[in-house]
């Protein structure tokens, strides 16, 4: 029993899962048992699918010790572009539109990656500048008009099918497999743990790093198209500032910001945690005006609890060694 408890507090994913379950039960009770319905859980995943999907790309970026704060700019640029393509009846084919959004995202990511890997620019700065650029380009594409309602009817209808769930699930399965069982996944971890060692052992660090940012861009572009589908509108301001949500979801999920540590499962749990908080706050009878404050407190509390539990487990491990 003791060993079991020790294992519990030591494993980040499990302790987070427990916090999540407790939170879920508390919210369910507070909201008069309306929270556990299948429809509601579906909505949680759907509404936060953008954050969840982008958190996968962010996981890899953070694993290499980088960061990407331009993602919502990419999202807006890609989303706005596909929105406009539909509005002006250039392309109405939904899968094709998704591909275009992904391609735009990949290009943006490629640019970030090359500047960071080849130009040796620190990731936060490169993507800070890039954030301005992509967001600005989104506004250039927008040119004074939103695309919404019947303009994006095709995508909007897709958003109401099981499509978004499938994309979400597929993304997580693919990433789980890639990060756990492929050379690429291992290389990403290797670079994050020790860049020099990775380089010496023959890993093409630059190439992996560029690829990581390209993948981040791909997911951000995908999220752009998804955003248009889910909310039935494309605006240049969409998801402004939400990159921090994505980073927070990763960090809550146990991804280290200095690189090398973090898992797909943890990221998923972190993302769900964030999603549950988002969904729960308006439901539990809290006044709208308090919700931002409580959200901040919860984020801070979770990272602190996490560190405290790690400390305890470390102390226990030490104590065991002494014996």
């Amino acid at each position, binding site marked *: 029993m003791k060993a079991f408890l020790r294992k519990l507090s030591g494993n980040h994913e499990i302790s987070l899962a427990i916090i999540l379950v407790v939170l879920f039960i508390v919210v369910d009770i507070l909201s008069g048992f309306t929270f556990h319905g299948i429809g509601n859980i579906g909505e949680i995943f759907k509404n936060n699918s953008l954050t969840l999907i982008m958190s996968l790309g962010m996981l890899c970026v953070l694993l290499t010790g980088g*960061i990407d704060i331009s993602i919502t700019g990419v999202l807006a640029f890609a989303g706005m572009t596909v929105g406009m393509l539909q509005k002006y009846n250039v392309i109405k084919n939904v899968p094709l539109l998704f591909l275009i959004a992904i391609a735009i995202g990949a290009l943006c990511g490629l640019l970030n990656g090359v*500047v960071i890997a080849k*130009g*040796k*620019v*620190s990731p*936060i*700065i*490169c993507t*800070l*500048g*890039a*954030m*301005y*650029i992509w*967001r*600005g*380009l989104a*506004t*250039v594409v927008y040119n004074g008009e939103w695309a919404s309602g019947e303009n994006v009817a095709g995508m909007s209808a897709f958003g109401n099918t099981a499509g978004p769930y499938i994309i979400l699930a597929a993304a997580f399965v693919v990433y789980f497999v890639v990060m756990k069982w492929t050379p690429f996944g291992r290389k990403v971890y290797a670079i994050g743990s020790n860049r020099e060692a990775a380089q010496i052992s023959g890993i093409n660090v630059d190439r992996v790093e560029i690829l990581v940012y390209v993948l981040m861009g791909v997911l951000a572009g995908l999220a752009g198209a998804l955003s248009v589908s889910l909310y039935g509108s494309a605006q240049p301001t969409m998801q402004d500032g939400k990159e*921090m949500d994505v*980073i*927070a979801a990763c*960090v809550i999920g146990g991804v*280290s*910001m*200095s690189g090398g540590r973090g898992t797909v499962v943890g990221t998923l749990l972190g993302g769900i945690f964030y999603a549950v908080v988002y969904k729960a706050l308006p439901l539990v009878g809290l006044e*709208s*005006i*308090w*919700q*931002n*404050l*409580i*959200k*901040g*407190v919860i*984020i*801070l509390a979770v*990272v*602190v609890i996490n*560190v*405290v539990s*790690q400390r305890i487990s470390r102390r226990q491990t030490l104590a065991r060694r002494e014996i």
Partner: protein
Amino acid sequence: MAGKSGRTISAVPVRSWKKLILSWEGALVVIFIAVLIAGRIMSPSFNLNSVMFMMPQYLSQLFIVFPMAFVLIMGEIDISVGSIACLSATTACLAANAGLPLPLMILVCLGTGLACGALNGFVLTVWPELPPMIVTLGTQIIFRGISEVVIGAGSSLKYDSDNLSPFAATAGPVPVVFFAVVVVAVLFMILLSKTTFGRRLYAIGSNRTAAKYAGIGVNRVRFIVYALAGLMAALCALFLLTQIPAVKSDEFGKGFEMNVIAMCVFGGIATTGGKGNLFGAFIAGMTIVCMRIALGLINVNDNVITIVIGVLLIVSVLISGISRFKGKGKAKKKPKSVTAD
């Protein structure tokens, strides 16, 4: 040494004129002058009076540049400063509207900022393994959230008093806030380059573990820096209130953290820590401010301005980064090299 002035403890570069021009700060001065000249050519309205007239609004952000530079030199980040400015402005409004005299109001405002900064510092030093970015993200949401709850639903919180006029005064065309920024800049420069405290910041940023073993109270230094950041954010709020005499919790000071970090980095401060100085950050801040003013005066679309600043940021860091890279190679061959190129 390299184009990017790498002021480290071991090698303080000897200054010669050639070096000064070729250093990143020198380059920034040249860019700054180029921006002024280009602005003058492009817009007849770009003159001393109009620049000084438009400056106060941008200038108050420069107060935060200096402590942010400290934070970055330590290899950390603080993204809560904008929210601290918001909360400080909120308490300042409440104090002024309650009829407190000016000095007391200032005390309340700065006290709020200091307390917020100290809270960041407290959390980060009690649990030093926490990443500063995520902690300050949490407090960013919290400080703004408190402000939202305090102001409540309805209109913005108005600053109902004229007692801020000394802060909005001008000496000739030059606004008081300009002098205040210069004074703060000088104080921070002295703190960074002439005191043990400043050298400790570089030490922490270059190698935290080594700094710890060298007997530096790393956590004490960090606490002070975060508290300072809070204090300066409050000072920024105080001057900003002369421009924006009402607080809206969802926008006052929003995005300042990123503007300020951009200025620091443009000024040659590495976000990885241990590198950069305040003169660079100051001149970079002034360059961005003047660029915004010039682009505004020739009525360029505001989004184009953001794109321009984004491109400038990346390209400048890219170029200075490459030259730094080359310099590094040279330094390896000739350690402690102080000879001219």
